[in-house]
């Protein structure tokens, strides 16, 4: 049964220090209001999983000292440039880095989704990504011969990747706790694979999203949603993609990317936009 919380502070309180948190990429549904609440509650020791990458949201958590481990195919602010606090933290050796590749992240989550102990994939062999992941294994494809493949066909086994908490911001939910994510299907895999899904939604709608075959197709059933809160503009300053969404606040993101290049600039950003709860429109 999905719990309906009043605000992002209540949701952030559900995400314990040290949790392994799955985050969607910038072009998907980012729960930035909830991420800011995590910074305010001074979360510690988080293990961020980019599905398969993350940007602003993770950079904020890293800069605020909430993160120990980063497991991702990439960290970037896209057109706004490198993620400044991530870059600084890596150069300073402050993060445990589990560099991955997009399909390896997806393969690990799909194994968890299926309840399988691992997935196998081609690629990766000969890369330093693999060389630096002792938690992955190379095994031979037992079907190489009947699949017409010459040689021993080594493949990489990726263990099931089971986040403790999946965090995203969806366009809408109904009062039963069903959550619409449309084509941003990585959010569904993340919810299936994780132990808990703690999310925000732009708005809560009447009716049941599962009743119509069109909305049902893009809906995660409440079975997988631990807790949610309604937070208008919960993705800000990032976009809520799709024809029912809104655009990114490009000026704000460009300012962030510039300001956060220095530790002092980042602290000023936190003071102005994150730490002061009254600055949070979502808390109204």
């Amino acid at each position, binding site marked *: 049964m999905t719990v309906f919380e009043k605000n992002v502070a209540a949701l952030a309180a559900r995400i314990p220090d040290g949790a392994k948190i799955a985050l*969607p*990429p910038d*072009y*998907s549904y980012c729960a930035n209001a909830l991420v800011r609440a995590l910074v305010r509650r001074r979360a510690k020791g988080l293990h961020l999983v980019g*599905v*398969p*990458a993350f940007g602003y949201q993770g950079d904020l958590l890293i800069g605020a000292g909430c993160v120990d481990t980063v497991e*991702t*195919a*990439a*960290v*970037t602010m*896209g*057109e706004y440039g*490198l*993620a400044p606090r*991530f*870059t600084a933290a*890596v*150069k*300073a*050796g402050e993060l445990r*880095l589990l*560099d*991955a*590749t*997009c*399909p*390896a992240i*997806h393969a690990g989550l*799909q194994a968890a989704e299926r309840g399988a102990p691992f997935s196998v*994939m*081609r*690629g*990766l*062999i*000969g*890369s*330093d*990504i*693999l060389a*630096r992941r002792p938690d992955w294994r190379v095994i031979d*494809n037992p079907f190489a011969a009947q699949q017409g*493949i*010459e*040689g*021993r*066909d*080594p493949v990489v086994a990726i263990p099931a990747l089971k986040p403790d908490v999946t965090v995203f911001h969806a366009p809408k939910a109904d009062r039963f706790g069903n959550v619409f994510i449309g*084509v*941003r*299907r*990585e*959010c*569904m*895999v993340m919810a299936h694979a994780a132990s808990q899904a703690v999310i925000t939604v732009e708005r809560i709608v009447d009716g049941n999203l599962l009743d119509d075959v069109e909305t049902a197709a893009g809906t995660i059933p409440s079975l997988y949603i631990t807790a949610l809160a309604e937070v208008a503009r919960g993705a800000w300053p990032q976009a809520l993609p799709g024809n029912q969404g809104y655009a990114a606040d490009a000026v704000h993101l460009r300012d962030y990317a510039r300001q956060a290049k220095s530790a002092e600039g980042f602290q000023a950003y936190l003071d102005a936009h994150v730490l002061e709860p009254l600055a949070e429109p979502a808390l109204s």
Partner: protein
Amino acid sequence: MTVETQTGDKSQDALPEDILISAIAEMLEGLGHVAIGASSPIPMAAALLANARTGGRPQVSVLGSQDHNFFTDGAKELFDCAGQGRIDAFFLGGAQIDGQANINLVSIGDPDRPKARFPGSFGSAHMYYVVPRVILFRLEHTPRTLVERVDYISAPGLSEPGVFRPGGPYALITDRCLFHFDKGQGRFRLVSVHPGHTVEEIREQTGFAYEEPDHVPETAVPDRETVALLQGPIADQLAKLYPDFATRVYGR
């Protein structure tokens, strides 16, 4: 040793970008499906040009585009689609690219305390293995970027025998020239030098050894019809996804 210059019908209005785009488009013609990753206006323009020249082939998927993004199965679909053999060409870059076509998207120096850190490998260590025609694209052609040996292999250019690898490097295009990659020899071959550049300059600016034929042609300048396509309808399409690029290059 020498650059042979083009003699045919070439447009006087072709921009340097048009020459790059046209050279890439030639490598895409006849393919069924080309996918374009994030932040790739020139590859996108090339794919749209190839499509326009040949009446609808290749199909072009552009991540992040509203008009050209067909995917409905989440972030994994691009990689699944490539794994299914449904993507014939893809583009990869690299902070460093070396003479064996290894690419580095991660860091310079010790990865645990790097001198520089880049976003990360994304899907390179998958796409590079399964897409038949991977075109490496790097506009900064210097000994700093085109190196003897990359500091970190995000994805290797070649795989050992016994590793299933239908895909791999096909070409490397820079702001100075076009290389093809010879998988048998395991190295690049200089194919053409862009107008205004020289083979001597390429030798100086390239940190790795490559094959240099006796006669190296100049990269073809597109004809008037192609330039009109690029500076007209294709620039319009680019402007939707890359307004900055379209403004800077095409005044859109």
